[in-house]
């Protein structure tokens, strides 16, 4: 067992882990941050995306010990202190960008990374960036709309209903 220590959503988090313990397991089981989900075991679905040192990372593909000393942000860290949803979160609600909600944390974290690097992405750029995030409910229509809207683009021309 190893001792790991990292900053998660602005707070110091420490714990004992095995070498094989994945970052997502540490977040969910040791820290009780169950917003980060596991939807596959081949790093394909993206339900487990978190930010590690400012980059979007599939937390099922990183060992907890690799994140020792890192700055980690999870979906639980995306709203304001008073609970006000962040811009991307609010856009997902406004544009019905989620249904069952299981892929949603990963989608929001991935979208946040995209918009940090590319503040006004085109539809094609959004779809390409979401290549590593699978949603089975929405057919992606409203996810793409939500991300476009969150980046300040007018989506009124895209059929809503």
């Amino acid at each position: 067992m190893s001792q790991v220590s990292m900053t998660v959503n602005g707070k110091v988090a420490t714990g004992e882990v095995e070498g094989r313990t994945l970052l997502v397991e540490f977040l969910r089981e040791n820290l009780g941050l169950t917003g980060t989900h596991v939807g596959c075991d081949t790093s394909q679905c993206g339900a487990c995306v978190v930010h590690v040192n400012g980059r979007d990372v599939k937390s099922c593909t990183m060992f907890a010990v690799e994140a020792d000393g890192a700055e980690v942000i999870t979906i639980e860290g995306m709203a304001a202190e008073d609970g006000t949803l962040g811009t991307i979160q609010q856009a997902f609600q406004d544009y019905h960008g989620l249904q069952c909600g299981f892929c949603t944390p990963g989608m929001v974290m991935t979208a946040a990374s995209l918009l940090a690097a590319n503040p006004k992405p085109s539809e094609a750029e959004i779809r390409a960036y979401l290549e590593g995030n699978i949603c089975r409910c929405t057919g992606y229509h409203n996810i793409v709309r939500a991300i476009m809207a969150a980046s300040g683009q007018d989506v009124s021309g895209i059929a809503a209903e």
Partner: protein
Amino acid sequence: MPKDHGIGASPKRREDVRFLTGAGNYTDDINVKGQAYVHFLRSDVAHGTLNGVDTAAAEAMPGVVRIFTGADFAEVGGLPCGWQVTDRFGEVMQEPAHPVLAQGKVRHVGDPIAAVVADTYAQARDAAEAIEYDIDELPAVIDMKAALSKGAPKVHDDLTSNLCFDWGFVEENKEAVEAAFAKAAHVTTLELVNQRLVANAMEPRVAVGDYHRATDEHTLYTTSQNPHVIRLLMGAFVLGIPEHKLRVVAPDVGGGFGSKIFHYAEEAFCTFAAKAINRPVKWTCSRSEAFISDAQGRDHVTKIELALDKSNNFTALRTDTHANMGAYLSTFAPSVPTWLHGTLMAGNYKTPLIYVNVKAVFTNTVPVDAYRGAGRPEATFQLERVIDKAARELGVDPIKLRRQNFITEFPYATPVAVEYDTGDYVATMDKLEEIADMGGFEKRRKASAKKGLLRGLGVNCYIEACGIAPSHLVGQLGARAGLYESATVRVNATGGISVMTGSHSHGQGHETAFPQVIADMIGIDESMIEIVHGDTSKVPMGMGTYGSRSLAVGGSAMVRAAEKVINKAKKIAAHLMEASDADIELKDGQFSVAGTDKSVAWGDVTLAAYVPHNYPLEELEPGLEETAFYDPANFTYPAGAYACEVEVDPETGKVTIERFTATDDFGTLVNPMIVSGQVHGGIGQGIGQALLEGCVYDDDGQLLTGSYMDYAMPRADDVPFYKVDHSCATPCTHNPLGVKGCGEAGAIGSPPSVVNAVVDALQRGGHEVTHIDMPLSPSRVWQAMQQG
């Protein structure tokens, strides 16, 4: 001006806040103090005799609590099947045993052999690797026709063959159908495969069993679309636990699409094992495990023939389908290729004579059951493909041929035993032609041609039977359950309302949409109403959510219960205002006496119900809570018309969906935003089936598509924005809301238009291609172009 509240409005979903902040409560988020973890050792061969399982070394591994094998379940019931089909000859289907853990034989890759319970997951997995088991591998049967051939290895030794049933529908029509074919002016024949799919809800299945010895009470937390059904099936048929000692909780569930309807072995195991070791037991399915343990979908091989007269009227339809059941009968498997498929073969057309033959076959593959649409996509695909082929053979416009044969008068009794109550197929097709801008197709085709790409346009119609289902009817058809729904409307003293519904939400937004209905009925704010679901200890009874039934059946039960509440509240109001019950009106949350200015508020009445100081106690009980069960009089029949435009790259065979348009008639819409979202998601899955997805077994029964590395799920860059329209609404005539259901339409209606579009593109490009089996991968399309 869109409505801002009540029926027809699109308020933001209240459930979204918890999902968007990581505060959802999915089953894997539930941990019971002291829980142990189970890992299942599963067969790695498709068929074999299990001679023995040696657990001695594994039991000595660190953290192991107990290892269970088939011997521990020898006296425990098997997993039941909820539907019994009667075949063409009046015999009931062959129904094999379905043990929780393998009993002497394994029948598909993934069949559970042993279960290791340990202090941690990692310890359970480690110990499973130390189990030694002795299997004599047997030849596997994978292909359905081979499975029915003489001398084929039998999946179940105690059955007479691998034929589960040979079903004819309607058997009495068979000769008349043959006579119609004999005198047809034209017959179009198409052989096709509706390939096996995996539902792939993004949340893998989870089960947590808990047991309290002091009270002999069991709790199962599980990823289910219908917790009461699991309580009944598992309690009554597998473990012998009465309902009052068994609580089943299905909290937030991350998608289902049918795959979480069924009662699975892992649920029974965790419930059983928690008592056996007197400690909670948790199982979390990995995605790889889901591919070999979740019931799969579709897998039909069909020959369909359409007879037409010299004026191009459809005169008869005949189909011959082999339907794969897999190795065991999953909970509702026999209903899918029969009553959810044969009854829909009339589609939107007045074909007078129809005969459907389905042979259901056991193979050494994962069991097959309902997946979004369940039987109806299979019916729609073959019908809409053969019509398209007929139009091309006859040189007539595919839309014109459809229009000519549309059913236009309702109610309409089909030759396949159902009666469509309402619809307007001309209107949805008119709307489709308009909003898909079919007039602009030729211009777009030329633009594609300039880029060296072949552009095609495909159209299809669909109808489905939803709002499942009238109990008396499905009882005659083989269902071993009733398919009503229940709801309790509990009004609290201060006027707020809890609705306990048997419907289950796993993405459909019931917590937002159901209150819109109640708010309209009473005239109060939606925020005063909460929806409670997914827990057998809170909801009296429920048949759950599938078959696009939640609003049509569960919503109707809620309306009936609310009507009872309002009737009682009017009596209380009448007492408070010293008026007659019959004169009381309820509007905008105020009870008033007709023709007077007397009124009392909703909250005054609800308070009086619970503080009955001034109350007609001799006539009415205090309190304000009512329960209703609603059993539908008929199915509902959503219908629509879809159009797809594709570009095909002749160099590579790659298909790109350029435009996708859907016009649907869902009757009354409660929340148009949610309805559109349901259609979008269905279209996404339908495009997935048409272009990408397919479950492949090799000849030995090894699943070659066992992960997201191999099973191609549709991703954001595989699909376009969709244009959807629901304005051509003909309300359902037999439920109180006029709703029809919208959950499956997109998945039913979209695959044929994609394939029709690709065939159209290739034919316009000079290729004599009449059909390509799904998924239309670049290699399949390219090969078809080379051959045609």
